[in-house]
């Protein structure tokens, strides 16, 4: 794509097409509806003003995910300064966190009322942030390893390694649920 000054409507249509997916990724990273909305607002503004400089070296979606994941990382860093990092909390603290977050977000509330949903989110939030971002982009956003490497600015080898370690940790943490569901997915 050649750099060109886009009119306001075109800009908004381009961004609107990606907002929901970006929101989902950021929500999975932060685990909180309000935080995700705050971050998405910043991402939208940044993308809105930066769209003219977007040169099309990568797909628009890759560029947007880069902005979104950087913003999510920055938010986590900021939050960890004032509060505690969301990873590495005790079982009891994670339970409290999951319940507290139920207070926000009408869509998530319905889902989080279910035990399984809560367990999934807890397991996800208990992943180290650098594993979580790789897992989220692959699992929920269906990005290839190459795209993930581009978005996060890391090597393909690092993506492979983090994805594997994230899976292994989730497999361990969610084993009781995986047994209960008895689902083999594609099998």
């Amino acid at each position, binding site marked *: 794509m050649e750099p060109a000054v886009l009119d306001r409507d075109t800009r908004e249509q381009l961004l609107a097409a990606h907002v929901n997916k970006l*929101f989902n990724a950021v929500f999975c990273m932060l685990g909180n509806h309000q935080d995700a909305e705050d971050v998405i607002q910043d991402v*939208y*503004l940044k993308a809105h003003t930066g769209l003219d400089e977007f040169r099309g070296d990568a797909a628009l979606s890759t560029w947007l995910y880069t902005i979104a994941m950087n913003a999510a990382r920055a938010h986590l860093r900021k939050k960890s300064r004032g509060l505690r990092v969301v990873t590495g909390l005790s079982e009891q603290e994670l339970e409290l966190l999951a319940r507290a977050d139920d207070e926000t977000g009408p*869509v998530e509330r319905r889902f989080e009322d279910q035990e399984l949903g809560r367990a999934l989110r807890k397991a996800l939030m208990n992943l180290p942030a650098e594993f979580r971002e790789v897992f989220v982009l692959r699992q929920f956003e269906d990005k290839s390893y190459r795209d993930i490497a581009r978005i996060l600015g890391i090597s393909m080898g690092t993506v492979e390694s983090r994805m*594997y370690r994230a899976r292994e940790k989730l497999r361990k943490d969610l084993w009781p*649920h995986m047994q209960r569901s008895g*689902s*083999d*997915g594609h099998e």
Partner: protein
Amino acid sequence: MVMNECRYGKTASRYFDGELDARESAAFEAHLAECAACRERLRAYRRLDALMGARPAAAPGPDLLVRLRARSEHSRPSPWKDAARMSRMLIPVAACLCLTLGVLLYAQIAQLRNTPAAPVAAQNPAQIAQAAQTVAQSGTPVFGYALSESERQYLFGDNADALAIVYPVADGQNTGNGM
């Protein structure tokens, strides 16, 4: 849960994600036929995938897009913002200007300080020493010059008893044949 470790664990993860090329896939499938740990791992990955797939995508509040558009509308650059940006750009220029003025002012003051004080006439060595001390209070080097008869007459006229003049000199100034 089978906890057997196999060195192809990472490869299993890449295989599951369809990230192996054809040759690698064939090699891993051959390994898979013989490795119970990797088969178990892949089964677990499929279960995990199914669990995660059951999770509905998080959606923002229904009015988020409206709010985003409103916020981007407000963030449109205004003339005042442009003026503020300009004034921010002018700060370094103003700082340079102030610095230049300061240097010029300092040079001016230094020049005034280095201007030699008026010469003091002295009639004997004791007075020369005293005059030298007075003049030297300014902190600058002192140059004393013994006067010849004609010079004494020329400079001081009636004050014909003067033996020398003593005055401060600026740094680096040639002191000639000082006393």
